């Protein structure tokens, strides 16, 4: 159990108001676009109107005539420095600027550097590029056909569009289980291409001092340290050296995985800063962001379940085609080309399972990032949660009953899954029961039956998901070889205040508050007295950054461990200060903020007194100061979970789906700040509603993006968003120092299948078994009219 702290200290469990909000709500945040440097130039990018074309020529003459335009940078310029290609985090290659051909509509073709943002845009307009269109491959299934054009002909010996094959599990045993099963169901499930669409687009300001060789880049990145190392490795040959590279990630307006990759724009801006000798700012606009920055999902899954006729799950088999666009620019840990997709057995006790994923090249933008989810977990959860419903219908059981029958029981944790994950802790039935009670499940089923009699369409959908977050243990997890630990450097000042620096980077998650609370919990220093800093590679300790709900499991744990080390030293100082009482360290007890003498609790010293002594009166033979560092290598991942229940009503006339109620029960272990957790769940649910009913990146056959602005990329607003009803169960993680698990992504992962299941449930009496998301009104209308239902 975690010790209680007073509201003044504000440790674990207190809904401390977010420290960062004071500056955000007053418009005093400091984002990359707020950075202005003396003599700064502006960069704008010429982009391809074709999805696949050879570049015959690029003529910059007219652009260079535009007043204020100083330079036009092309692939040929970069080729001189061998910087026209760069590696992706998945060890594939990506063009910075092309010298030969373009591979998707919206790809960077050339860059214009000018003295103002307006002149740069005028310059872009004036660059003349001659293209020779090439055959376009948009469909990943067609991309694998033998006669498909080979897109990556830059790769020597490449004869097809296949990127990788990955599989897990025992294929033969699974096949046998399917052959022997009473019942099997199968369903193709497509998770569409979507975009994180964070409010702040991507950009940077790059500044290079040609005298000292110092490069400073203010950048919209979730992982500043990793970026620094990548820059040093990729551009070492042109003289960049890691001790002279400083990456600063200031306030970030939403990341969601979209700010993990290195985008060509960053590299071009750095090159432009080096070439011109001036600081260069590049900020993409919304259309650029939507059409060129990393997409998420785009998984074509063929999923099957084998079961007994009483609904007992026997085996799971999933075959997936992953459309990666023209290069594999996902950001998975190196050993996991399909991320943590093998969490697809979900909350259920499967004895047999087999999953395989094939990555494919097409003429679409690159990516495959984890959009607010821990590496392909959303895909996995959608497949299993949809399939369980398909099975429930097949065997004539209530979807809640099928789930309860097959949940991994609460007493089976730690649980070894058939795909070899060790689920740390869980109580799945507890969460589902709470969700069912809260929403009044049985009453809703009765209402549904009555409505069906009257011809009204109402549906109830459940999703009982298991997440896998907090990557990750160094024995399995690295990115480009960098192990996925994270870090905290904690320093207590003489006046008892502290500064804590972390290797992660908040993009809205509230780290300045939660990390301070973690340290407050462990040291008893009020959270309000603890400054939290992240994002500057010159000051913060090395870490792999914030994504995949890893900050609390890794850096948060590092904070707790560092605070523990500080407390150990504080105990020694306390004993020294209480010398007159003739006590030793062993006679001292800790309560948050104070050591006291066990036999005489009135006698004690506060952490503030100890801090002062650490600098003014430390014991002889001990080093002065009060600080500690922790690089935390998590022993395991954490497995947050939850049960969501959604109620929808369908408009028979228009096909519109109205989410009437949505109850979300989450379990993220011990809770650091309940208000922040609730906020994360609200945001996550809304980002789950979005792809379920609204968002999709779509393209025409020629590869033109059809939803490259907010006119057609339908981000839901407060009007579309239902009033979320949230609740929690608490099942602590046994291996995290604070018993916490991570909450940033559960809702994004868990919400879409709950909504899809509710819509399918509303139509199940018509024989409907599945609808791919986004479930748009016209899709529903088609189903209704096919079944003769109309207004």
């Amino acid at each position, binding site marked *: 159990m975690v010790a209680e702290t007073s509201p003044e200290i504000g440790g674990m469990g207190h809904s401390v108001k977010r420290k960062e909000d004071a500056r955000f709500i007053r418009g005093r945040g400091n984002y990359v676009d707020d950075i202005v440097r003396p003599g700064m130039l502006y960069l704008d990018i010429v982009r391809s109107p074709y999805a696949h074309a050879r570049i015959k020529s690029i003529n910059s003459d007219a652009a260079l005539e535009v007043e204020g335009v100083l330079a036009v940078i092309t692939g040929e310029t970069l080729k001189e420095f061998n910087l026209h290609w760069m590696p992706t985090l998945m060890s594939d290659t990506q063009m910075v600027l092309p010298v030969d051909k373009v591979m998707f509509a919206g790809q960077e073709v050339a860059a214009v550097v000018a003295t103002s943002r307006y002149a740069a845009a005028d310059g872009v307009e004036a660059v003349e590029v001659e293209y020779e269109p090439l055959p376009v491959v948009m469909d990943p299934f067609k991309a694998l056909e033998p006669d498909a054009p080979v897109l990556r002909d830059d790769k020597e010996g490449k004869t097809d569009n296949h990127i990788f094959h990955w599989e897990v599990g025992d294929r033969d045993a699974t096949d046998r289980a399917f052959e022997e099963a009473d019942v099997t169901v199968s369903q193709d499930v497509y998770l569409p291409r979507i975009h994180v669409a964070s409010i702040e687009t991507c950009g940077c300001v790059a500044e290079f001092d040609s005298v000292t060789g110092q490069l400073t880049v203010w950048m919209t990145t979730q992982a500043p340290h990793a970026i620094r190392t990548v820059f040093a490795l990729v551009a070492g040959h042109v003289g960049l050296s890691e001790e002279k590279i400083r990456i600063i990630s200031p306030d970030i307006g939403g990341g969601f995985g979209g700010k993990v990759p290195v985008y060509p724009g960053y590299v071009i801006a750095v090159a432009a800063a080096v070439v011109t000798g001036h600081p260069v700012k590049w900020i993409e606009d919304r259309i650029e962001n939507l059409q060129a920055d990393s997409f998420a999902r785009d998984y074509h899954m063929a999923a099957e379940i084998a079961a007994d006729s009483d609904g007992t799950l026997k085996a799971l088999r999933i075959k997936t085609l992953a459309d990666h666009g023209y290069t594999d620019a996902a950001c998975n840990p190196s050993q996991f080309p399909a991320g943590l997709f093998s969490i697809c057995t979900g909350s259920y006790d499967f004895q047999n399972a087999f999953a395989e994923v094939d990555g494919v090249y097409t003429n679409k933008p690159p990516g495959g990032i984890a959009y607010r989810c821990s590496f392909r977990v959303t895909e996995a959860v959608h497949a299993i949660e949809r399939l369980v419903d398909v099975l429930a219908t097949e065997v004539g059981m209530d979807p809640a009953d099928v789930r309860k029958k097959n949940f991994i029981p609460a007493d089976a944790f730690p649980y070894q899954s058939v795909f070899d994950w060790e689920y740390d802790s869980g109580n799945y039935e507890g969460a589902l029961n709470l969700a069912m009670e809260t929403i009044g499940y049985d009453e809703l089923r009765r209402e549904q039956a009555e409505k069906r009699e009257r011809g009204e369409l109402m549906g109830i959908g459940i999703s009982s998901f298991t997440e896998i977050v907090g990557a990750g243990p160094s024995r399995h997890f690295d990115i480009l070889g960098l192990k996925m630990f994270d870090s905290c450097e904690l320093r207590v000042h003489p006046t008892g205040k502290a500064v804590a620096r972390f290797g992660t980077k908040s993009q809205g998650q509230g780290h300045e508050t939660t990390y301070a609370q973690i340290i407050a919990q462990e040291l008893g220093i009020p959270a309000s007295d603890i400054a939290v800093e992240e994002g500057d590679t010159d000051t913060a300790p090395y870490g792999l950054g914030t994504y995949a709900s890893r900050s609390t499991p890794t850096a948060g744990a590092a904070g707790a461990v560092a605070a523990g080390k500080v407390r150990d030293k504080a105990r020694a100082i306390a004993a020294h200060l209480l010398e007159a009482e003739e006590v030793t360290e062993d006679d001292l007890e800790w309560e948050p903020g104070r050591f006291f003498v066990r036999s005489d609790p009135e006698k004690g010293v506060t952490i503030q007194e100890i801090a002062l002594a650490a600098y003014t009166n430390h014991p002889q033979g001990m080093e002065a100061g009060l600080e500690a560092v922790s690089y935390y290598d998590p022993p395991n991942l954490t497995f947050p979970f939850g049960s969501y229940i959604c109620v929808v009503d369908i408009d028979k006339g228009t096909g519109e789906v109205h989410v009437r109620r949505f109850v979300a029960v989450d379990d993220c272990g011990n809770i650091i700040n309940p208000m922040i957790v609730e906020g994360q769940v609200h945001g996550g649910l809304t980002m789950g509603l979005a792809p379920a009913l609204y968002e999709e990146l779509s393209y025409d056959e020629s590869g033109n993006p059809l939803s490259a602005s907010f006119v057609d990329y*339908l981000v839901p607003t407060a009007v579309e968003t239902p009033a979320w009803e949230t609740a929690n169960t608490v099942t602590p993680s046994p291996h995290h120092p604070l018993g916490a698990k991570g909450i940033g992504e559960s809702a994004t992962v868990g919400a879409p299948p709950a909504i899809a299941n509710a819509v399918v449930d509303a139509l199940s009496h018509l024989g409907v078994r599945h609808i791919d998301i986004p479930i748009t009104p016209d899709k529903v209308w088609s189903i209704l009219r096919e079944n003769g239902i109309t207004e």
Partner: protein
Amino acid sequence: MIPGQFEYHAPSTLDEALALLAEHGSDARVLAGGQSLIPLMKLRLASPAVLVDLNGVDSLSGIEESDGQLRIGAMTRHSALERSELIASRYPLIADAAAVIADPLVRNRGTTGGSLAHADPAGDLGSVMTALGAEVGVAGPGGARTLSIDELLLGPFMTTLDEGEILTEVRVPQPEAGSGGAYEKLERKVGDFATAAVAVQITRANGSCSAAGIGLTAVGPTTIRASEAEDALTGSSLDDDALRAAADLAAAASDPAADLRGSEEYKRDMVRVLTLRALRRAVERAGG
């Protein structure tokens, strides 16, 4: 998303504005709320060399009833229509529509005149004014003239306004007793242009329909008047069969194109559903 260069003028009277337009000829464009023109300029789909901003011409804004007409100045913002008590009490069709044009930010800037002059087939006010049988006042080098809404709206983003002309006001006939109207818009999310929308205005006299106007939004290359549906309703008893028959005719009059909002069939059926819903509400509002 950065516009090209342009010259900017901000006249404070209609005459000055007309003079500037005359001076710059086809290089010049009028700027009203800028909610259509500025996005086009930022995308460089429009690059007018000269902008004549009407926002300082106060005489072009206002909502009033006189001479048997409701007069809406061209520069009247959508939000002013939305908040007007006069409109709320006597022109429910306009009130319905004003509340669902785009979002509050756009409504605070966008204008009635800009919306009609832009002639976007997805513009909500085009079908509203069609159903209401409105006319527009126009000022230009050749003096003032009046056009019916059907005469004004020529095609996709095309009107019969001549170079140098400014649309000055919209005039809507005052509703007779027994009138009612309603607007039904289907949108994918708030702030979206319509997937389909239907404006209806009916008048009931002595138990039967004495006049009907039906305008369709976003289901053809231009705003569509569903004349056959109007004719069928006129003289009918406005019972549910009559409304359904009119809804079918309205759907038949639509000419939608497939896009991300849906197929042709879907949109045509939405015209039917929305017409029926709008008519039912209009009849209810007409009373008796």
